[in-house]
């Protein structure tokens, strides 16, 4: 199983940041995307003014660790942001509601058993190499993703049970599954199942990873140097953007230039000195960084990334096999203090094992309250007695848990301190990112942590259904006691066969509750994508998955 990120933390939710005196405004001030934080409302009236065409947007990400730009293969958040502007998908997902809306497919039918999907396609779409987009292209793409096998670490889970695609007519195609896959419709909205031109699939996966492919998106790739730079140029004849964009035609900007700047200080410095227009860091901009960019006239946008919250994961084959210890750990975490200390006041506090923007999210904050007294009582009852120094032990065995981490981080120090309050000793084992993945996948930990971004709660099944995750493939193989695992597997089977979104959400509510109350996961933080934009940048939008969408963005002089 791949990890989007091996250690560090992530982001947080919408703040009501109002950047005084900054930026003017989003054009669509009446139909504001709630994920996009508006600038000063007073300044907002000035600019329903004309959108300026042209210009190059200079953007900086944190890093390009995997150096893979193939949407069907990669799982790195930043790469997926670039992919969103290079390739189109069959459907799109409304950032406000999570609803699936038409894009390359104009309408679709889902079989009641969730084993068959039929799509009607647009017939006016071309790939940037001139090839026409049709039913055969869809079949080639899905077969191509299937053929990637383990290389499509994410895609393989999105099309689990894929049996084949049948071309019914040039504009009608049916996708069949051998097992139900109710999450497939949302999957068609992701970059992961983005449709590349048929010719692209004759290239090797390695060549595609380096950018040797063609999509039908509003931009084309002009240069990709791994770990260094990405350049995109606009496609002038683009005319099939999905309805959630204000601009469904060719992009307003001419080009995008991406660089990678790992240090937050350098990143914000580059923005305030005008060397870049957009800073798009992996971890949320710190309070200090936000203050400094806002003082320079920039705006800070933020959105909660859907998918798994940053969860701490226990291994029940150790001290954490004792349910009382897991319950106590759940109560010992003070998530509100954690969010405001490690990030900033107003950072969203985790309320479930999935982030609040995931369509199937349910508020479980009542199960996640900070209750150190309750935690101590549970440990006392279970025989973990506090010694003179406050640390606990039972039959001479100290209550000491090893957390495997990919690098030092103040956030873990605070977790350690919070657990220490109730007498649980936490030992941080710092390892390299490669060792982190190995240790997490092989169960060599008491506690580990990971997250993943997807606009559908089915990501929980991918990570924590023990009929999917086997020992050696992910930490989800170790975090449940057998009876919890059986219960969850049954619920996951229901969820993946349920085509009614309302009923499916109800099943997910049960799943989230069980994961939390059984102590299979300890949510730590909602993840937030922040982006700081210079005063000249307008209408930069997030997708539902909080990736970069360039259709509407424009640069004023």
């Amino acid at each position, binding site marked *: 199983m791949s990890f989007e990120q091996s250690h560090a933390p992530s982001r947080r939710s919408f703040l009501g940041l109002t950047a005084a005196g900054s930026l003017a405004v989003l054009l669509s001030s009446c139909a504001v995307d709630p994920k996009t934080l508006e600038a000063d409302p007073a300044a907002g009236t000035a600019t329903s003014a004309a959108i300026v065409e042209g210009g190059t947007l200079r953007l900086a990400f944190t890093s390009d660790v995997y150096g893979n730009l193939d949407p069907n293969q990669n799982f790195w958040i930043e790469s997926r942001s670039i992919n969103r502007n290079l390739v189109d998908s069959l459907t799109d997902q409304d950032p406000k509601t999570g609803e699936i809306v038409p894009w390359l497919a104009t309408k679709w039918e889902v079989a009641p058993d969730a084993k068959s999907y039929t799509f009607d396609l647009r017939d006016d779409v071309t790939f940037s190499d001139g090839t026409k987009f049709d039913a055969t292209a869809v079949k080639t793409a899905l077969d191509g993703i299937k053929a990637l096998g383990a290389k499509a670490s994410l895609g393989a889970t999105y099309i689990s049970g894929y049996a084949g695609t049948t071309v019914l007519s040039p504009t009608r195609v049916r996708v069949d599954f051998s097992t139900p896959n109710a999450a497939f419709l949302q999957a068609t909205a992701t970059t992961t199942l983005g449709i590349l031109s048929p010719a692209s699939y004759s290239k090797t996966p390695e060549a595609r990873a380096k950018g040797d492919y063609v999509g039908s998106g509003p931009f084309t790739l002009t240069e990709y140097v791994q770990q260094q730079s990405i350049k995109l140029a606009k496609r002038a004849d683009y005319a099939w953007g999905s309805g959630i964009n204000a601009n469904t035609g060719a992009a307003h900007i001419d080009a995008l230039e991406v660089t990678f700047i790992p*240090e*937050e*200080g350098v990143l*914000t*410095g580059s923005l305030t000195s005008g060397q870049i227009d957009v800073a798009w860091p992996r971890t949320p901009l*710190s309070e*200090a*960084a936000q*203050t*400094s960019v806002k003082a320079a006239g920039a705006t800070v946008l933020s959105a909660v990334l859907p998918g798994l919250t940053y969860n701490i994961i226990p291994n029940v084959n150790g001290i954490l096999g004792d349910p009382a210890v897991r319950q106590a750990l759940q109560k010992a975490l003070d998530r509100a*203090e954690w969010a*405001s*200390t*490690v990030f900033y006041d107003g950072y969203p506090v985790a309320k479930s094992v999935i982030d609040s923007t995931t369509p199937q999210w349910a508020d479980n904050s009542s199960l996640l309250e900070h209750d150190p007294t309750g935690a101590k009582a549970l440990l006392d009852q279970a025989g973990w007695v506090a010694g003179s120094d406050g640390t606990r032990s039972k039959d001479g065995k100290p209550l000491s848990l090893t957390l495997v*981490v990919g*690098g*030092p*981080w*103040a956030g*873990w*120090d*605070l977790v*350690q*301190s919070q657990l220490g309050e109730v007498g649980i000793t936490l*030992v*941080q084992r*710092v*390892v*390299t990112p490669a060792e982190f993945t190995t240790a997490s996948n092989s169960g060599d930990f008491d506690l580990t942590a990971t997250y993943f971004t997807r606009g559908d709660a089915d990501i929980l099944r991918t990570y924590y259904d023990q009929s999917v995750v086997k020992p050696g493939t992910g930490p989800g193989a170790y975090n449940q006691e057998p009876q919890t695992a059986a219960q969850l597997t049954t619920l996951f089977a229901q969820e993946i066969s349920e085509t009614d979104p309302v009923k499916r959400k109800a099943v997910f509510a049960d799943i989230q509750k069980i994961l939390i109350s059984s102590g299979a996961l300890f949510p730590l933080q909602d993840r937030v994508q922040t982006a700081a934009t210079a005063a000249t940048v307008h209408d930069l939008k997030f997708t539902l998955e909080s990736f970069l969408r360039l259709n509407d963005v424009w640069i004023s002089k």
Partner: protein
Amino acid sequence: MTTLTSPTQTSHTTSTTTAAADATTAAAEPALLPGGRRSRRAQLLRRPGVVVAVLYVLLALGTAAVPGLYTGVDPQQPHPADKLLPPGGQYWFGTDELGRDLFARVVHGSALTVQATLVALAIAVVAGLLVGLVSGFCGGWVDVVLMRGVDVVLAIPTLLLSLTIITALGFGTVNVAIAVGVALVPGFARITRAEVLRVKTLPYIEAARSGGATWTSVLRRHVLPNTWGPVVVLAVLDVGTAILAVSSLSFLGFGAQPPHADWGSLIASGRTYLVTNPWLSLLPGLAVGLLVLSLNHVAKSLEEVAR
């Protein structure tokens, strides 16, 4: 940040700077008295710079030995309400991003940094002395094999070597010390070997041999005591190098196991706040900088006075 200087460079630089220092000293104090230990000490104490440097080194050693004497505050205790406070009355060095007392962290970090430095030097001196002694004394193929080994180690950039060792051993203060120590060995081996080669041709060695002493007793009673003078000088000079090397590795994230922090990791964790809360990096950086400067000043002054 300076990384490890290659040992050959170190010895080279040492000799040239010493020559230069001699020239200045000679100009400043033409009537340099020849004298015994007592007058040398007196000369040293007449230099205010040396006194200050010695006091600072003693302070650093003191905080390393008994940090609790200097601060009663728990360096690991977060105070979320007091995060990122500037230096002031309650928190002398301010607080970090979790509201931990930076002064307490610097004081407790000194223990880790100084201990790692001493362990590193011990490894370098002992191993270097042993390799140099055997190599110089035995000569022949033993010398060839050992010195080619040392050459190979010298050929690898020292920071790279340290990183490789630490990746193999795992993270942690002790492992950082071992990595730095191993990287410093070749310098000591080279110096020792050169001294042994010089000493072993001297008449008193020959005399001892003709007097019937065994090779091992000659080695132990005559060669070794007359060899380690320059080694000790190099060791004192390399304390500064070792502190910088240990801090560099900690800065890169290989050092102290969190939540403990040594000076290097304190500098690293403050980087994010360099623009808005510069003291987080600058104060621990100052602690390192002053200690290295003081040690160098003391070592140089000792050298000048000794001549």
